[in-house]
């Protein structure tokens, strides 16, 4: 099977000498870390087709999102789980309703089936009693759990996580990563995961199959994990 997530010669910022090229193989957890000036924070948007790359191309599940219409792109995103930086939870909805939102708009399941699925996800991410709180009433860790649960609502095979562990303890970060991996197969994690951000806890680094550091000049340096 070809890599589900491929960046081919994508320039991340105007200062980069080398365009960004990366292939995330199936069942792998890959982290790309770099400071803000490196342009690492744009990778998630490129992978989801939220921003068009200024050059090169991005293939997700063998599809070049730039060739899709707006409507097709929206539908395609349901196949990729996305946890945006800062969690992106809707503030006037409870955490439970936030998790249910993609299912309510993107599936033809009945409201009852959706509620059942959400209950299962809430238990899986160990959100417990916090599920009925709004983001402002929940703590950072609960919000991260809810945002991850929402990203996994459609049980996607590919997850793109932007700064997913900001504001949580190393222990909680490790637990969140295990939930995101979705269990183990003979080839590795059940899901293919791309983590982008500035830094991740050491315990999470050790669970990644590959960890790259992106320099300001745009070169990608493989780090031993």
């Amino acid at each position, binding site marked *: 099977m070809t890599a589900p997530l491929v960046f081919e010669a994508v320039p991340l910022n105007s200062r980069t000498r080398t365009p960004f090229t990366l292939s995330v193989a199936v069942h792998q957890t890959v982290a790309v870390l770099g400071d803000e000036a490196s342009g690492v924070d744009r990778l998630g948007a490129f992978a989801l087709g939220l921003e068009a790359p200024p050059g090169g191309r991005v293939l997700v599940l063998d599809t070049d999102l730039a060739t899709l219409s707006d409507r097709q792109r929206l539908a395609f995103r349901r196949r990729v789980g996305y946890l945006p930086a800062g969690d992106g939870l809707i503030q006037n909805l409870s955490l439970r309703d936030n998790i249910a939102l993609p299912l309510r*708009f993107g599936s033809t399941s009945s409201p009852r089936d959706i509620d059942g699925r959400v209950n299962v996800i809430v238990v899986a991410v160990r959100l417990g009693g916090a599920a009925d709180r709004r983001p402002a009433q929940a703590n950072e860790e609960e919000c991260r759990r809810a945002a991850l649960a929402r990203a996994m609502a459609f049980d996607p095979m590919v997850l793109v996580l932007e700064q997913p562990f900001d504001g949580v303890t190393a222990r909680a970060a490790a637990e969140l990563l295990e939930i995101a991996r979705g269990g183990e197969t003979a080839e590795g994690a059940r899901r293919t995961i791309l983590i982008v951000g500035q830094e991740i806890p050491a315990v999470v680094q050790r669970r990644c199959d590959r960890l790259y550091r992106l320099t300001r000049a745009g070169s990608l340096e493989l780090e031993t994990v």
Partner: protein
Amino acid sequence: MARWLSLLGALARFSFGGARPATRLPRAGRDVVLRVTLNQIRFTAVHAIGLIVLLSGILSFLVISQAVRELGQIGATGLIGTLMVVAIVRELGPLITALAIVGRSGTAIAAELATNTVMGEVRALEGMGIDPRQYLVLPRFMGAMASLFSLLILFDVVAITAGFAAAAFNGMTGSRYAEIVLRSLSARDVWLTVAKALALGLIVGIVPSYFGLSVRRVATEVPVAVSRATVASIVGVFLCSALFVLLS
């Protein structure tokens, strides 16, 4: 002029883009949109009842009081009906109701959507495969239309009742007042009021949503978006009223 025309074109595309996703909503999505719409109606219509009753009552009472006195001196009290129907029910009612909603809810819609954008919620919705126009714009657009329509009916009822009180206060009998108002009121006035309510509701729902979602990701853009939304909505309301006068 070119800037305004370009804005008009962008608003037309935005309105069409906001209405079209409504046809593609699954059942659970429709339930969510309905819930948000009802919430919008609660904030826009129910919470504005007091304001509309106050504005309508005072305006009608003052206008009819003055009219009974002044027109009575020249024996033209029969024109009070025309004044009530043409000036208050047909022209000022929709205008004042729309302006009140722009001030109360249009600004709130623009600020809310701009904040949603700045907080990354709109991007998150897109990332989940949800069209932000389905979840954010459609309910506000439908809520604003329904609210303006209901508040306009309330405005007219209160205006006619306050006019009755003003006429009685100035010595005119109730039956005379009712007779001249009803004589001036035609089915055309009713249809014009309905059409105006829908057109103004469209402006009040769409324009603030458009400006609210036009911010990028900087908090300082929020007040600018609210200000632009308010100005454009007020201009739109006046232009729309003028257009109805020209066409009717």
